[in-house]
């Protein structure tokens, strides 16, 4: 069943969109990532204009992350205080990101920027996560737990706060910066930024892993909400019908993911996520260097 998208101005199969939403939503609930890093390239692949894909995906992530946050909230696995610090940075970051996006869209370089961001960030995160999770897997096999680091590198910084749920007493600056970086990426890449935030929370901030996913989703929900609003106002690229189709699949998938999560082993899950991230990265990177079949494109900003 084909459906005409009013903003994207293309006709696409509704079941394909529902399926994509469902699959990506499941990953979202499973890993605490928005899944945007998969969905945005997929949408562009099926013919949605990049600007519409990025803005609409942000809207969809609002739904899947809210659905996930509710589930985690009931389990008390959300550190609201940490979430708010991350969010403060995130809102600032997304405001900057949307402006950058609008300028590059006019210049016709959105595609390149989006692709480069994907390759760089997915590459870094994927490799780090892969190495880390493999060594964690090895340690888990020999039944040795990684020793808890006594001193964290950020201990010298001011504005120390106690994050009870995360079992941390650290400066508010690192989480604020992590939030800001993720906010910029959310706006430019049409992603929630969970794939960066989750590892940053674990390895950079040293948060307790139990609250990482819920807290990440909490922050992502607000940042992508702000991004959606800003894209709607500045670029008019949020497609209501596309968003609804994606989020119907997305919220259902997210709920399944959240329930599936505890049944799987965390280390194995992280290896899988790392592989997935690297796969997407390799595909986008290859497209950047491969000699294209068609050198010309019909650019945006023409009307």
């Amino acid at each position, binding site marked *: 069943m084909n459906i005409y998208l009013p903003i994207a101005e293309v006709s696409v199969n509704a079941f394909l969109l529902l399926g994509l939403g469902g699959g990506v939503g499941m990953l979202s609930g499973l890993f605490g990532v928005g899944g945007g890093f998969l969905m945005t390239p997929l949408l562009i692949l099926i013919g949605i204009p990049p600007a519409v894909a990025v803005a609409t995906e942000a809207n969809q992530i609002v739904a899947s992350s809210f659905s996930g946050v509710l589930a985690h909230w009931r389990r008390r696995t959300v550190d609201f205080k940490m979430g708010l610090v991350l969010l403060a940075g995130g809102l600032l970051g997304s405001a900057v990101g949307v402006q950058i996006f609008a300028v590059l869209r006019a210049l016709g370089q959105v595609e390149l920027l989006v692709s480069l961001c994907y390759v760089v960030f997915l590459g870094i995160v994927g490799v780090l996560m892969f190495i880390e999770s493999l060594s964690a897997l090895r340690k888990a096999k020999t039944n040795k737990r990684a020793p808890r680091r006594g001193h964290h590198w950020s201990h010298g910084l001011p504005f120390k706060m106690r994050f009870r749920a995360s079992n941390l007493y650290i400066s508010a600056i690192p989480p604020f910066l992590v939030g800001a970086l993720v906010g910029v990426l959310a706006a430019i890449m049409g992603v929630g930024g969970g794939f960066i935030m989750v590892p940053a929370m674990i390895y950079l901030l040293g948060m307790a892993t139990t609250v990482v996913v819920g807290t990440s989703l909490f922050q992502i929900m607000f940042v992508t909400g702000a991004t959606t609003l800003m894209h*709607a*106002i500045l670029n008019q690229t949020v497609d209501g019908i596309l968003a609804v189709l994606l989020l119907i699949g997305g919220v*259902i998938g997210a709920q399944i993911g959240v329930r599936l999560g505890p049944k799987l082993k965390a280390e194995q899950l992280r290896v899988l996520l790392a592989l997935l991230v690297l796969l997407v990265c390799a595909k986008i990177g290859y497209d950047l260097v491969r000699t294209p079949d068609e050198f010309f494109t019909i650019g945006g900003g023409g009307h």
Partner: protein
Amino acid sequence: MLLLAAFVALALVPRAHAQIAEERVVAGLSQTTVSITTGFTGSEIFIYGAIKRDAPVPKTWPLDIIVAVTGPSEPVIVRKKDRKFGIWVNDSGVKVDAAPSLYAVATTGPFRDIISFTDDFKHKVGLEHLVRFIGETDDAAYKAGYPEALVRLRKAEGSYFVLTSGVKVSEETLFETRIALPANLVEGDYRARIFLLRDKSVVDVFESSIEVRKVGLERWIYTMAHEKPALYGVISIAVALAAGWLASTFFRMVFR
């Protein structure tokens, strides 16, 4: 006497074509409005008509018909990829001032065999006269092949097409064709022109317009997104939150 009359007639109408000028096209379209609804997957327009003439069918040249449906013309930016530091980067682009959003043509024979360059230029039938630069034209831009690329890309996505021998003519009088408009139509007033040709010359033109409009939900969403973007953004978020809550509540009730 009869001979004299024939001579007079010949003197008054020195060319054989003049007889042809008596022929006129009368045509109809199966629909003059296309509504883009949520389920819109394209629309087939049936174009039919007849050739009205006072004299018997001229035997001099065969009759040809070109049916051209063109979408609203808009400036389009075409960009070319260049390799920089090993990756393919878009250039700043060339603005092609006019390009129809749709170019759907059906003919009775190969385009170049049935219409002369002069008449093609005069009536702007061929794509090269529709996809063009306005005013001062930069020769370099032409040479770099930007308009050609635009045509190629639009052909690939199905927005530009020519159905050679897509028009059926019976008894040199009646003709009909079907033109399938693709799903990715943009809004606007489309032109439908029917050219009657003899000896590669345009004898008569019939013109009609097709109104393409988004309706219902499509119209509402599009208008709101552009006219009340802040409200639209807020509603988008509200819908997302509601969906997230619904799914969460539903799943909690079903699997607790």
